[in-house]
Each structure stands twice: as structure tokens, then as C-alpha cells.
């Protein structure tokens, strides 16, 4: 077992497992699991308005985690960090509240056909609510939205561009900085779905110059139930709140309420302090490993898997031919075997991959495959995991179609 796997209790308990479904959720290292447990053992209380020591500790834990997240993605101010449950909720907040702020009838929202359903259906709904139009960008063969494609689709009516940073099927990374500059020149607000990017790439929201950035803790070694919405203060301040109640208000009378300042305005009800502590520990963990190591290992693993799968004539790989451009995500099909059967037979060989539409049905139809298998790597995977995958591909093919 490689040294990195050793940080993960679930790996220690499943030595023969090749866990290659990291794009769905990552496993959690000891230090994250322990940090959450310690929080509940030492400093649990309802944060923010408590006037006693434990509540102060809980508030500190909660706000220090926010500071760490702000620093991690280089947000200018910690008030720009809103805690959510997951990337889906972050994206929903943008689609609800930003739309309420800026959308008029006949305006246009621009998203790509590659979006995860969580960055697509909220916009379908927003378009319906505001009688706006949802317009699609289509990628080139490498899964990239070109500047030409964007320029062609932008119009004076395009108020919002919401784009995934890294596709959860093709692994393709969009050049957000370049696209955002074009959009901004058109007065279009830019929201980015970073769920598949932040586990693999160092994020600097100021450099990207996006207006919103959404991600989930559970895909970056943190517990489930905690996510983040980064938003530029100028927009967050003007947007109406989304969920209401709890700590997000200042004054309430029978018919009206005024809202608390950022970031609390968007955080209704008792927050998940344990989750915030876990996310903070996950950031410490990632920083101790280092993005350099993460990228180096994941690129090597992706290359190995891509090279080996390419050798098999009955395997189709989706997206770029260059495995380095996949950020550890490889979507593929074995000719003549349904992805669900592949995934089940992978499981019986102790390989965990996903088979299905990966919450990206329109993309699947665009790729003309409806369903596919997806192996997705984290830096803790190793060459043995990949070999196990490849052996299993060969076995499944021969099991269905003879040697």
C-alpha cells in the first residue's frame, strides 16, 4: 500500500480495493475524521450569538475555518465565503438570488452542454421564472469551450455565464480566466462550478476573476454536508437572501425583516460547524500534501490509465486524446458491454468505478453514448490500482465476448 493510502482508514481496511470513484466523493483521511470528532468532544456549541466559552470556541472554529477557506482560494475577504451544504446548494443560491437581482424577461443565461445537472436545472428553473432564455455552449473535440464559441453566443442580453471549471465526465479544464474576461467585457456576470476543479488544481478566484465559485467539501477530503459559495462582495451584498430564518436577520417585526451583513445573510439556521472544522482540516491535509504532488501523481496515473486503455481496440475513451488534460477523470465504454454490467463486474474484482450518465444527460447525448463508465483518480491512487482496472477491463470484455 502506498504511503498516501495509509492516511485513509478506509484504505487500510480495504487493502485490495482500487477506489476509482473519487469524482463522486473522496475518502477521508484520519486527520479530518479526528478533527470533527475532537470538535464535538471539546468545543461543540451553537456558534455566533453565544455568550459563553464553549459557544465562543465553536464560533472561533467556525470563523477560523472560513478564514482558512478564504485564504485557500485567495478570496479578498472572508465575508465572501458562504457556507452551504454542497456545490449543488451553492449553485442553486446563485441561480435563485443572482437571477432575482439581474434577470429581466428575454435576457439570456449561458451555460455549456457539459454542465452537471446541478449547474443546469437550477438555470432551467431560473429561465422559466424570469421568462429568460437558456442558451448552450458546445465544446470542441477536447471538451473545451473556445473563445470563439463564447463570443458567438454572447449577446447584449447575456446577463449570466455559468460554467464548469473541470467537467466531471471529460475531465476537461476550461480557461476560466480568458472566458471570464470576454464575458466581463460584455457585462456578463460569471459563475463557476468548481466541484471537480478544486480537488485537482490550485484555485485563485482573484486570478480567475470569476464572480462566483462553488464547490463541495466531500470531493476534497472533507466530510459530507459542507460546501462553499464564494461570491464577490458587490454582488452578494445586493442579492436578496435565499433561505431565511435563524441567524441571518437583524430586525424582525410581524410583516418584515432586515437582514444581517455578509456572510450571515446567506446562512440561515444553525450551521454545520463540525463540517466547517472538517473542511478546514481537509485544507490542512491538502496543503501538507501539496498541489504539486497532487497534480504530479494524478497526471501520471491519468496517463498510465489513458495509455493502457487506448491500447484496447474495443475501448472508446471520451474527451481529449491527451490524458494530461483529463485531471484524473477517464470516461470510457467497452464495446458490447453495458456500463452497469461493467461497473458491477468491476466491483467483483474490487475495483470501484461509476457507470451511468454521471448527472450529465445532455452531455451524454451530445457524445452519443447515453451511458459510460468513469474511472476517476485521486493522488492517493497508485499504479497498482490502474493495473487492477485494466486487467478487469480485459476480463470483462473476454467474459462477454470470448478471448
Amino acid at each position, binding site marked *: 500500500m502506498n504511503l498516501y493510502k495509509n492516511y485513509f482508514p478506509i484504505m487500510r481496511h480495504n487493502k485490495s480495493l482500487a477506489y476509482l470513484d473519487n469524482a463522486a466523493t473522496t475518502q477521508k483521511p484520519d486527520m479530518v475524521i479526528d478533527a470533527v470528532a475532537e470538535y464535538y468532544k471539546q468545543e461543540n456549541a451553537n456558534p455566533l450569538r453565544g455568550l459563553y466559552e464553549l459557544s465562543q470556541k465553536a464560533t472561533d472554529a467556525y470563523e477560523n475555518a472560513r478564514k482558512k477557506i478564504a485564504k485557500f482560494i485567495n478570496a479578498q475577504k472572508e465575508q465572501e465565503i458562504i457556507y452551504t451544504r454542497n456545490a449543488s446548494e451553492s449553485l442553486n443560491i446563485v441561480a435563485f438570488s443572482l437571477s432575482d437581482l439581474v434577470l429581466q424577461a428575454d435576457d439570456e443565461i449561458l451555460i455549456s452542454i457539459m454542465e452537471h445537472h446541478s449547474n443546469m436545472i437550477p438555470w432551467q428553473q431560473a429561465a422559466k421564472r424570469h421568462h429568460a432564455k437558456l442558451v448552450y455552449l458546445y465544446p470542441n473535440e477536447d471538451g473545451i469551450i473556445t473563445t470563439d464559441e463564447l463570443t458567438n453566443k454572447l449577446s447584449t442580453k447575456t446577463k449570466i455565464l455559468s460554467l464548469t471549471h473541470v467537467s466531471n465526465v471529460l475531465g476537461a479544464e476550461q480557461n476560466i480566466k480568458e472566458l471570464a474576461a470576454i464575458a466581463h467585457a460584455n457585462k456578463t456576470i460569471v459563475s463557476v462550478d468548481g466541484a471537480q476543479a478544486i480537488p485537482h488544481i490550485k484555485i485563485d478566484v482573484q486570478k480567475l476573476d470569476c464572480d462566483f465559485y462553488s464547490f463541495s467539501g466531500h470531493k476534497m477530503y472533507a466530510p459530507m454536508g459542507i460546501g462553499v459559495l464564494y461570491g464577490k462582495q458587490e454582488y452578494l451584498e445586493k442579492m436578496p437572501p435565499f433561505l431565511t430564518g435563524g441567524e441571518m436577520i437583524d430586525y424582525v417585526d410581524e410583516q418584515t425583516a432586515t437582514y444581517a451583513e455578509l456572510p450571515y445573510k446567506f446562512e440561515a439556521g444553525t450551521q454545520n460547524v463540525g463540517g466547517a472544522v472538517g473542511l478546514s482540516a481537509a485544507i490542512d491535509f491538502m496543503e501538507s500534501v501539496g498541489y504539486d504532488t497532487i497534480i504530479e501523481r494524478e497526471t501520471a496515473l491519468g496517463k498510465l490509465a489513458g495509455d493502457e486503455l487506448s491500447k484496447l481496440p474495443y475501448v472508446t475513451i471520451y474527451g481529449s486524446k491527451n490524458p494530461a488534460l483529463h485531471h484524473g477523470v477517464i470516461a470510457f465504454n467497452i464495446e458490447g*458491454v*453495458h*456500463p*452497469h*454490467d461493467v461497473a*458491477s*463486474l468491476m*466491483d*467483483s474484482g*474490487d475495483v470501484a468505478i461509476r457507470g*451511468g*450518465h454521471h448527472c450529465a444527460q445532455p452531455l451524454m447525448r451530445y457524445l452519443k453514448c*447515453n*451511458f459510460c463508465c468513469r474511472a476517476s483518480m485521486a493522488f492517493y491512487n497508485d499504479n497498482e490500482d490502474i493495473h487492477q482496472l485494466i486487467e478487469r477491463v480485459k476480463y470483462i470484455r473476454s*467474459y*462477454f465476448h470470448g478471448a
Partner: protein
Amino acid sequence: MALNNIYNDILMEHNTHPDHKHKLSNASDCQTAINPQCESDAILVKKGINPSCGDEIVLEINVEDGIIKDVAFDGQGCAVSQASTDIMADLVIGKTIDEAIEFTDLFIKMVRGEETDEDKLEELDEALALKDIAHMPARVKCAVLAWHTLNQMLTDKQKN
């Protein structure tokens, strides 16, 4: 690892060489929906869909005098749903409507793990090969798709 033995010889045989994957009726648009025009007195057509995994089958049955004379299917899906459909066809052809409904009920209970009595399950014959799918709930829907569709067709038929 419970699924290993799901992909057994019986399932693989029915998947590779389905005896009943063909058409009973001629109208080509029977494939896309329940189209009354292509139902003769005897032939019933129904489409079954498993939205979560995209399996789709079109089931056709020929019922005469309360006896299922023939079953055929078309559509795409995983080996589990394809084989399960073919196995079902083998089992219910020649049976009465009531018997067939009983089989479908029993099968659905088996793959949901609600019926484990070996003696009772014996009746299901080759369909027993799908028993262990109960350990993999994510695949249960694939296995029951055809059985569920047939069950609906037959209970609808009985009501009319």
C-alpha cells in the same frame, strides 16, 4: 462481491442468445409507445422504462383464451435486464394470466429479498439465477423491469 455469481451461465446465455428478442406485431411504431393501433385483439404492447439507468424494453404478449401464447421484447439495456426479460418469457409462455401474475409477484419479492423460501422460489425455474441480485439494490430495478411491466399489462387486461 455478491454480484459475482449474478453473471452466471444462465444469465450470460440468455443475454448472448435471447430467444424472445424479436417482434410479434408488425407496426414499427409499436416500439416507441403503447400504441393501440398495433394491438390486435390478441397482442398487447407496453414499454417499460428504468429512468435511473436508462434501460428500456418494449414487451409484446399474445394472450388467447386467458393463456399467454407468446412473449417477445425489444429495446436496449444491461445484461441483467435483457437476460431477465428473456428468462421471464420462457417462464410465462403457456401459462394462464393468473399464473403469470403470480410469477411476477414472486420474482419481484425474491429480488427484493422479501421472499427467501427456497421451496416456493423453485417455481421460478431459471429465474432463480437472479436471486442474488437482492444483494445489489442498485441493480434490482434492472432485473424487475420486464416483470413489473408484464405484471401491469396483465392486471390491466384482467380489469377490462
